[in-house]
């Protein structure tokens, strides 16, 4: 038997068409989205990975990662980064990305259960268990970090209740409440194929540059699984497009929605590349040009033209925003740093220099004055209370219009006699496609004001966030900073040898 037919025996031939129960009862969601799949049998999982190969390869990979982690933990690697403010970024990543990995794990099971296409099902199941891996190797790392640094110890409550966490959570909740084909496109295509490289590659390089050996290893280890997930995304997309022409407009609509939805979650990643590392191997703008513009918009979407698929709506807007994205997002984080479990920080002279050189047209002109206001008083730019956020991406509505950067891009949409606020044309479009869905979001500010978390605001809020006000604010003036300096002193790392 050749590899192909034996793989087929190991996957697609295992399932059968139920005889005693209606197929529509076994797969109740299969026709709901209007997707037509005539001959799913001809589709192949490009990776053809069997169970045995999976456990052997992944177990090896896992052991390699844990060796790095053990060394990092045993040798106080956390004290050896060039600047501890990096960990504020790591906390943001921890609290936004790690729960997302876990949600993706549950989501892939939902997709696999409900799409009866065996070649895809085995790949979705591999991804389902991969995502559990990512959630666990990340949380395992934070378990160690949590013993030395603030902000991570209450991740469960933070994830359930903090305004910041609704951003990533709402993305996955949106997919979990969609039909299985839409969910597959949302994750396998938009998230994995279009954006995952930009999440793990630049951020892992930043980690390596600042000396966080462990996080560099997390990034690389996770990314090695993503190659499979990207292949699944491509296979699934091609399958839907080739099976029936009637699928094309439906898929196009999903690509429009999920491109912008994924792009918006990655706003925080832009700050993790441009702001938090003191040594920066790459800027958001360059990373976006390489991983999104070249590889996706100019590469993949050109190949998709033959199916009648065009670039996602608002892709143009994301290109325009690349000169502004990290600065506008960092500005938002600085506004609300008193109500977050990771801190902002005062920019140092070398930061201004790097940002100015990388963003000659925008940083100095539109953003530097804002950051300089923190030179005299670190809380000078704090906005009191909890932000008004976009009804789709749930990021505070403070993105400038890239065509007129002194104006906000904020949009409004009427639905059911209420005005809803959106951060951008991209989110407005998404809202108007499914307003009935998007008005069901859990809006923290409303819950807080309605007294869901008590009446003594803001102190009662912190009880629900799970962290104390001292764990927020600014890094260089924080207890974390002080402790980190002391750790370095104890280890003799504060000495300079020329």
């Amino acid at each position, binding site marked *: 038997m050749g590899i192909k037919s034996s793989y087929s*025996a*190991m996957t697609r*031939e*295992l*399932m*059968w068409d139920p*005889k*005693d*129960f209606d197929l529509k009862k076994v797969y109740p969601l299969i026709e709901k989205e209007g997707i037509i799949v005539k001959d799913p049998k001809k589709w192949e999982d490009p990776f053809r990975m069997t169970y*045995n190969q999976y*456990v*052997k390869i*992944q*177990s*090896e990979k896992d052991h390699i990662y*844990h060796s790095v982690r053990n060394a990092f933990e045993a*040798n106080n690697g956390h004290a050896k980064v060039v600047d501890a403010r990096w960990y504020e970024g790591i906390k943001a990543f921890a609290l936004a990305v790690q*729960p997302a990995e876990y949600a993706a794990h549950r*989501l892939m*099971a*939902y997709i696999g*259960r409900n799409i009866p296409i065996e070649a895809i099902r*085995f790949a979705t199941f591999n991804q*389902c*268990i991969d995502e*559990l891996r990512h959630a*666990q*190797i990340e*949380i*395992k790392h*934070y*378990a160690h970090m*949590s*013993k*030395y640094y603030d902000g*991570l*110890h209450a*991740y*469960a*409550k933070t994830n*359930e209740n903090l305004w910041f966490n*609704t951003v990533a*959570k*709402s993305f996955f909740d*949106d997919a*979990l*409440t*969609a039909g299985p084909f839409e969910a597959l496109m949302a994750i396998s295509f938009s998230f994995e194929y279009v954006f995952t490289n930009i999440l793990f590659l630049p951020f892992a390089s930043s980690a390596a540059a600042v000396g966080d050996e462990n996080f560099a290893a997390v990034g690389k280890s996770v990314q090695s699984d993503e190659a499979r997930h990207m292949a699944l995304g491509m296979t699934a997309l091609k399958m839907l497009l080739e099976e029936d022409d009637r699928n094309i407009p439906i898929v196009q609509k999903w690509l429009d929605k999920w491109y912008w939805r994924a792009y918006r979650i990655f706003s925080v990643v832009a700050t993790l590349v441009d702001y938090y590392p003191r040594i920066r191997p790459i800027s958001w703008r360059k990373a976006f040009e390489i991983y999104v513009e070249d590889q996706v918009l100019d590469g993949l979407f050109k190949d998709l033209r033959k199916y009648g698929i065009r670039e996602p709506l608002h892709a143009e807007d994301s290109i325009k925003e690349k000169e502004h994205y990290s600065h506008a997002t960092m500005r938002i984080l600085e506004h609300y740093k008193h109500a977050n479990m990771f801190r902002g920080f005062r920019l140092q002279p070398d930061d201004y220099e790097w940002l100015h050189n990388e963003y000659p047209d925008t940083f100095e002109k539109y953003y530097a004055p804002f950051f300089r206001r923190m030179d005299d008083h670190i809380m000078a730019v704090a906005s009191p209370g909890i932000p008004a956020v976009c009804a789709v991406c749930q990021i505070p509505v403070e993105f400038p219009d890239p065509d007129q950067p002194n104006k906000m891009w904020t949009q409004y949409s009427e639905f059911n006699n*209420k005005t809803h606020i959106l951060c951008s044309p991209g989110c407005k479009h998404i809202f108007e496609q499914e307003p009935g869905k*998007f*008005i*069901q*979001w*859990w809006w923290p500010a*409303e*819950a807080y004001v309605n007294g*869901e978390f008590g009446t003594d605001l803001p102190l009662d809020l912190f009880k629900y966030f799970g962290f104390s006000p001292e764990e927020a604010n600014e890094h260089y003036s924080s207890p974390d900073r002080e402790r980190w300096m002391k*750790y370095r002193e*104890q*280890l003799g790392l504060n000495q300079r040898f020329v």
Partner: protein
Amino acid sequence: MSGPQREMLEPIRKQPWDWKTKNEYEEVTVRQQPYLHGHYRHIFDERDYDIFDPRYTRLKSSDWEAFRDPKKYWYTTYTSDRKKMAEQVENNFSQAEEFHVIEHLDPSWVEAARTIYTPLRHLEYGESVQLQHVIRYALGTSIEQCSTFQSFDKTGRAQWITQWAMNMEAHHGDFLGFGKEIFMSQPAFQALRSYVEEVLVTDDWGEVLVALNLTLDPLLGNLIYRDFNRLALKHGDTHLAGLNYAIIKQMDWHADWAFALFGLLAEERATSRWDYLKSLGYEDWPGDYRWGMTLSDPRNTPEEPMHNREIINEWVGKWYPKAYHAVSQLSSLFERHNLQLNVQEALQAIQKERIEPKYKNAGIAFQGV
């Protein structure tokens, strides 16, 4: 660079999290799944439930986080264990090939294995598919994580049996196609096929686990992977026995974790499906209000009046006899192939020695057949 002078840095907390964890497994498992403030309602599910909602099962719990896997598997320990198992299975296959075990098998035994063992790849796979439903809807990471690994085990097992069948095909003609034919239309297998199809349309994740782990799997698994396996050894079929050796290990863990879970749930005193909120520190949660409207106030959905113990008994009463009947249908195949094993007697022995004690230990009532 650690040495005697190198003092340990003083951590700010001894425990990583705000809740107690006793080991690595708990560190990476407990409280992974969020419980509150899911964002939207499923667009095709008119029940209007939250993303992780206690109403996806009739079972109640005062603490959905309380369950622990007796084996404490998390991704790293699970894959590491299964890697060893996969290597064992592969080594056993190549050894059997090397020693010409497969080609020298007695033809009558080959026929028996072809007919009785090959169709199991489909059953195992069908179960794996419905366990993915459990992974999505079960409440609490410790429970769904066990389902994840079990589902993956069953997928792997379906592939192992497929590989075994392909090895057999190299010497003894068609196995895969023949096995599927048997599975789809040989009368002795129809009740089993139908049983798994019924599991596939069972929505309550708790019931799915009962229908697989507490009823069908202990009966079918012990009959085939243990008793039928003894016959394999009698016929010198180490090729098949080596595979069953790995499968039995998986199977015993599947039973262990499921009986541990249902034992715990049977003891449950919770009277409302919302009691678990107290264990999470959300006893004052006023329900799911959005924009001044209520998305299905939990307190307005009717409570399940029965206690867990009664519900579990009801499910066992519904599925166990069905499973027993379905497995006992295989006896005609055992007779036809002149196997020295009386299926009815074997099932009685399995029930008495292997199943009853498990129910007893878990404190769950058991009638048997």
